[in-house]
């Protein structure tokens, strides 16, 4: 059954056929569909990619290791969908990938998605001491990219930092950095987002 639906995705000719095929495959909620759903990110069909991302997010931690291992290093559009999906699932096994994406990817869409995701991971799923050190590594990365020259990266860093401030032991450095941005950032939009983080 799933095999047939996977074949239908591969054989879809028009964009609309692709969306329908992906919807049918997603409805099975079968883990065997995971590699195909990830591959859909690379087909340059935003509607189909959105369906695949929702399905993978619902599969949650079952999809995480394949999302990480099958990341597309040569297609930044596909990579952004993978990172957004990992950010939405929020499994902390994605930490290293999100850190390298946020800090070193060349594509702003990938970096923004990673920055947002870094604030939201489910840290409590990690064992001690990782549950303690992992959020600090996320913090270091977010503070680093909060100094990026591109405004939208700094904006996303603020969104990540705001979420990360749920960790009470990180609040002091986070609010120190946000305070700095409030007085020094050159973009009104970024400063406004900092103000919102304070509310």
């Amino acid at each position, binding site marked *: 059954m799933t095999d047939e639906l996977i074949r239908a995705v591969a054989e879809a000719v028009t964009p609309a056929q692709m969306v329908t095929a992906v919807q049918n495959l997603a409805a099975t909620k079968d883990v065997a569909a995971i590699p195909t759903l990830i591959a859909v990110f690379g087909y340059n069909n935003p509607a189909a990619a959105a369906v695949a991302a929702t399905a993978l997010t619902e599969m949650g931690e079952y999809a995480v290791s394949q999302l990480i291992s099958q990341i597309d290093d040569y297609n930044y559009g596909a990579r952004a969908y993978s990172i957004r999906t990992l950010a939405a699932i929020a499994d902390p096994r994605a930490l290293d990938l999100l850190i390298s994406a946020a800090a070193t990817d060349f594509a702003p869409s990938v970096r*923004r998605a990673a920055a947002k995701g870094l604030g939201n991971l489910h840290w409590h799923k990690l064992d001690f001491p990782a549950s303690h050190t992992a959020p600090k590594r996320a913090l270091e990365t977010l503070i680093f990219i909060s100094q990026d020259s591109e405004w939208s990266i700094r904006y996303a860093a603020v969104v990540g930092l705001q979420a990360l401030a749920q960790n009470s032991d990180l609040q002091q450095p986070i609010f120190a950095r946000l305070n700095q941005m409030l007085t020094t950032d050159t973009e*009104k939009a970024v400063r*406004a987002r900092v103000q919102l983080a304070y509310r």
Partner: protein
Amino acid sequence: MVEPSGEEFPSQNGPQLTPELAIANLQSPDLSLRYYAAWWLGKFRVKRVDAVDALIAALKDEADRTELGGYPLRRNAARALGKLGDASAVPSLIECLECSDFYVREAAAQSLEMLRDRTAASVLIKMLDGGVAEAVQVQGLPHLTQPYEAVIEALGAIGATEAIPLIQPFLEHPVPRVQCATARAMYQLTQNPIYGERLVEMLATGDLKLRRVVLGDLGAIGYLAAAEAIAHAKVENSFKLIALKGLLEHQLTPELNDDSIRVMNLMDALL
């Protein structure tokens, strides 16, 4: 998925320049170095008096010509001067509006739009002479008789309300991008929401390239009622973020208001 050009790769192609070297290169015997230096000064926003003066001088360049009689260096110099934000360039840019090269006129109009100087109004208005009837494709060339899009946007940006009756007919111009520029300027000059809604409508009906243009227009005029339409448009997130940033900046007050927060919530969801 395509993101805005220039955003993707850090610009490390081309010779390594310093402001001093770039200014000196504007007089290099190598014309390609002059051309590159003018672009570089704008790109890196070298806001120095000597850079501005050298670029103003380059607006009169006669050495760098294309087969069709165009002036590549003048085009780049005109573009750079818009980015440097120095009002002393205005009179020379206004002179460029009468250059024989279409692309010099276009670059000058775009830069005058950025510099927001009222003194450009009368020459810009003259470029609309003949109205829509004269605004036709030049035989064998990929552009109209005048850079109408840039001229109309500039008139909107500088608040040239006296131009309203001349601009309004361009809403019916056959080129969609000219229609967009007109709706944008009309909104800026009248604040009438029918022109903002016209852009929202084009966001729903236009092709991908036009949708990107419309997002730029909506961001530039800060048309708040378009916020949700922007967030849901079938366009790459990078373009939507820039448009919503424009809306946000129009709404900002020292204390955050509900409209600003609404726009930021939409932006957060696009990360």
